């Protein structure tokens, strides 16, 4: 007996007492789907790449980002960032400026010349991608990463599709498109320009392709019948924006009226302002609330001096005079003519009433169903013709760059599965990491001194390109505002707050493990987990 009996005890001997038997609830680590990821049409793991950005490892962040989206510099400019709308941080202060960080990473990658790694092995399969817009580029990139030989055929003279011909330069400088496209072709994707596919069946047969992904953009403007007389200058938005890519900008005059309520209408109006129009008026038949354009775009257009005329339709154009009929919303929210008229002077009228896709390449393809001007696809993005997949503007969905990039990725995965004979099955989605699962106490507010600067920095993504993006310091700051909703970010809270030392820290990157020998099930770890990554579940007794 080393010590006096029962009076002195050897240290740490209580470890013999397994207090885990007291437990009725057990903590379990979970991963939940962060709302940003959930909202991202491109299926980005936003939280995942922000994690790397938080520690300043931007290349790792960029590489994580481009696992899902090869076009971060583009997306960082043109994405309508539904992620930010979903961000739980908005309930604390302001959503994380995900889009700005994405752009920062994209720009940094271009600046540093970061390249994609070629596929580790070749599958020996050939895939044809039709259309070098965002969907086609995305699909080509993902297919190539999976080891397939990809030929990307583009009808136009340059890659980019609607990104190049539908989005104004002030929002998306062309060298950015060029840089990100180049990085994809550098992986071994064969890009064939000025090479319209007229017959998909023939093209596949000719090229010996095992599968095809169709991603033709909506380049054809929808026309509404507006009786025009005199020397009225009436043009459509697609035509107008495309002409912006030429040497001589179109002449619109002093006063421009844009007809329509979508994002394109806004783009046209803002472009018109930039081209020198003193007045740019958007005429839309419903109210602001009903406008399909993103509200922040509307807001920015208003700030730039674009004016809006709600509940109005253009009945006739006569020279420089438009006849407008006032509308009223009925019980169901549809606009109904009121019979009240007024006139509006305009030097030109741009119609931005939507676009259609040229689907003629499908004429000879068996089994393909077309509905409402788009191709019907299954959940696997495959058309009625086996091995032919479609996405982007061709498939039924919102027509945005981000959605297109998402289609490209999704289609690539199913194509890969199709080619390998192992149909791709998406991993089941985790439950949503909703705001009520967070313990927001642990997220610190930004010091008041830097808030204005950051607010400005967050906003410039949709402003004049000349103002630039985030710099390293505020990008880092912005990244660190991420709450890591629903997924452990190794804050050590559980490890620290356990009164029973029953949380085992596994070291950097390896998260934690509950030591059920000692965990009494008090629930403090779950309650104090900032990001809601611990569930308390009833113990089975």
């Amino acid at each position, binding site marked *: 007996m080393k*010590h*006096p*009996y*029962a*009076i*002195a*005890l*050897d*240290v740490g001997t209580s470890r013999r007492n397994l207090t885990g038997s007291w437990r009725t609830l057990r903590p379990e680590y979970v991963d939940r789907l962060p709302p940003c990821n959930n909202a991202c049409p491109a299926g980005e793991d936003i939280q995942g790449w922000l994690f790397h950005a938080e520690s300043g490892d931007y290349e790792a962040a960029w590489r994580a980002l481009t696992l899902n989206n090869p076009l971060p510099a583009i997306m960082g400019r043109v994405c309508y960032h539904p992620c930010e709308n979903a961000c739980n941080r908005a309930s604390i202060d302001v959503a994380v400026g995900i889009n700005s960080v994405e752009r920062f990473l994209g720009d940094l990658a271009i600046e540093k010349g970061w390249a994609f790694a070629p596929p580790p092995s070749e599958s020996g399969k050939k895939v044809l991608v039709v259309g070098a817009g965002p969907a086609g580029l995305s699909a080509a990139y993902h297919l190539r990463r999976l080891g397939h030989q990809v030929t990307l055929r583009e009808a136009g003279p340059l890659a980019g599709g609607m990104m190049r011909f539908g989005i104004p330069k002030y929002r998306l400088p062309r060298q950015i498109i060029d840089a990100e496209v180049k990085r994809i072709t550098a992986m071994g994707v064969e890009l064939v320009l000025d090479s319209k596919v007229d017959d998909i069946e023939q093209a596949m047969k000719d090229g010996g392709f095992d599968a095809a992904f169709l991603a033709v953009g909506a380049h054809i403007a929808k026309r509404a019948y507006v009786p025009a007389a005199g020397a009225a200058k009436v043009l459509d938005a697609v035509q107008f924006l495309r002409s912006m890519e030429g040497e001589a900008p179109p002449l619109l005059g002093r006063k421009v009226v844009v007809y329509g309520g979508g994002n394109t209408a806004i783009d046209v109006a803002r472009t018109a302002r930039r081209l020198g129009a003193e007045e740019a008026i958007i005429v839309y038949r419903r109210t602001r609330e009903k406008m399909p354009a993103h509200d922040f775009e509307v807001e920015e257009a208003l700030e730039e001096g674009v004016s809006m005329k709600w509940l109005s339709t253009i009945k006739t154009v006569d020279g420089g005079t438009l006849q407008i009929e006032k509308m009223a919303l009925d019980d169901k929210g549809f606009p109904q003519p009121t019979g009240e008229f007024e006139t509006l002077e305009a030097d030109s009228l741009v119609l931005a009433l939507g676009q259609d896709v040229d689907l003629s390449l499908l004429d000879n393809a068996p089994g393909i169903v077309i509905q409402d001007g788009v191709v019907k696809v299954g959940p696997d993005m495959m058309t009625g013709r086996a091995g032919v997949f479609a996405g982007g503007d061709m498939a039924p969905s919102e027509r945005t760059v981000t959605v297109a990039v998402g289609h490209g990725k999704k289609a690539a995965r199913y194509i890969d599965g199709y080619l390998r004979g192992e149909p791709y099955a998406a991993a089941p989605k985790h439950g949503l990491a909703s705001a009520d699962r967070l313990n927001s106490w642990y997220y610190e507010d930004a010091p008041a001194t830097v808030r204005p600067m950051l607010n400005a920095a967050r906003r410039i993504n949709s402003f004049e390109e000349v103002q630039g993006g985030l710099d390293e310091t505020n990008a880092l700051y912005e990244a660190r505002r991420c709450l890591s909703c629903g997924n452990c970010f190794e804050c050590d809270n559980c490890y620290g707050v356990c009164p029973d030392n029953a949380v085992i820290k596994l070291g950097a990157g390896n998260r934690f493990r509950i030591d059920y020998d000692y965990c009494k099930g008090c629930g403090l770890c779950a309650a104090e987990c900032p990001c809601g990554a611990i569930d308390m579940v009833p113990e089975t007794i």
Partner: protein
Amino acid sequence: MLEQLEGSKAMAKVIGLCRPQVVCAYPITPQTHIVEGLGELVRTGDVQNCEFINVESEFAALSVAIGASAAGARAYTATASQGLLFMAEAVYNAAGLGLPIVMTLGNRAIGAPINIWNDHSDAMALREAGWFQLFAENNQEAADLHIIAFRLAEELSVPTMVCVDGFILTHAMERIDIPEQAQVDTYLPPYEPVQVLDPEDPISIGAMVGPDAFTEVRYLQFYKQQTAFRLIEKLAHDFKKQFGRAAGGLLRTYSMDEAETVVVAMGSVNGTIKDVIDEMRADGILIGLVCLITFRPFPTRALQEALSHAKDVIVIDKALDAGMGGPLASNIAIALRNLAQTPNMHSVVAGLGGRPVTKAALHRVFRQAVIQPWDGPHFLDLNERVIAREIHRKGKARRSGPSAENVLKLLERERAEKIAAAEGTGR
């Protein structure tokens, strides 16, 4: 070196020679001079490497000593009376934890009524606390016992109380041989704790012990006390060899040749008793004395041996268990109960609250025990008249104030009458 010193000062000097490392001081009469003396020795540098700590209570005094001892320092404190009771739970605690603290108890009565004078009520009140309790017969022994106490305490990890009669010894100036430092160092090696708070080798001291082990812990305490007898005798033997004079041990006998009557007592009253015995022997009375030095552990066997041939045993208690009588008498009765021939037991309660124990009274009671034995405890020099009046008064009217006050009033009246009478004769 021989010096004429107040007992407290002599003890302070000798305790200083024992190289205490932590001394906790809190004033209570009559032990105050001891810690004052030690404080002075620390300030002058005569005692080096010692923390002298003025604490805020006796409870703290012993608690500080407990901490110091558990952390490996030789710790000392002193107290008396109410002070001992105020630290009572720490007294038990030090013993339970097996911390070899040495404490001087300047024996004093316990109130109410408040009384600062000597008796053994304090030591008796905590006789079951698990400490060794050694009683000094005179100031030489009072000083010497501390040297023995440190060694005893540290060898067995049992705290030790050196009981010294308040005032009678603490305030008496006598010739005392103060040993040399080297002699003390030879006798008393540095403190080597058996359990110590040390970050290099951590342990937990003072666990909560439940019914499953408490009896065993207590038994081990008992066992340790039982095995201490031989060590106590050995330490006394070693002491004599080292210092050339007797001190300590379990008990000391005096004039035991063919003694038919044996007195048993503790502390300074033994000196007076010895004088009485010499005088009675001169008168041809076969009387002897057992001077009990070690009260805890209670040396049952040694007492049996010493008292087995006595016809009458007279036990002098300087304390009273109000519901039983003299505690020492009770202990001795237990010790002797299984002797083939049990002596007649006579219990005397004497010297309570500083009442002088006079030779005259002892002569009277020693003779009376043999020729006119009494039942229960005999209260030496009890003022029977006062008691009779008070009992009478109480019998007449209940709830008429505390007895103590009434007794004081009666005594005051008696004293005034006496002085008036004396002054009358003076003229």
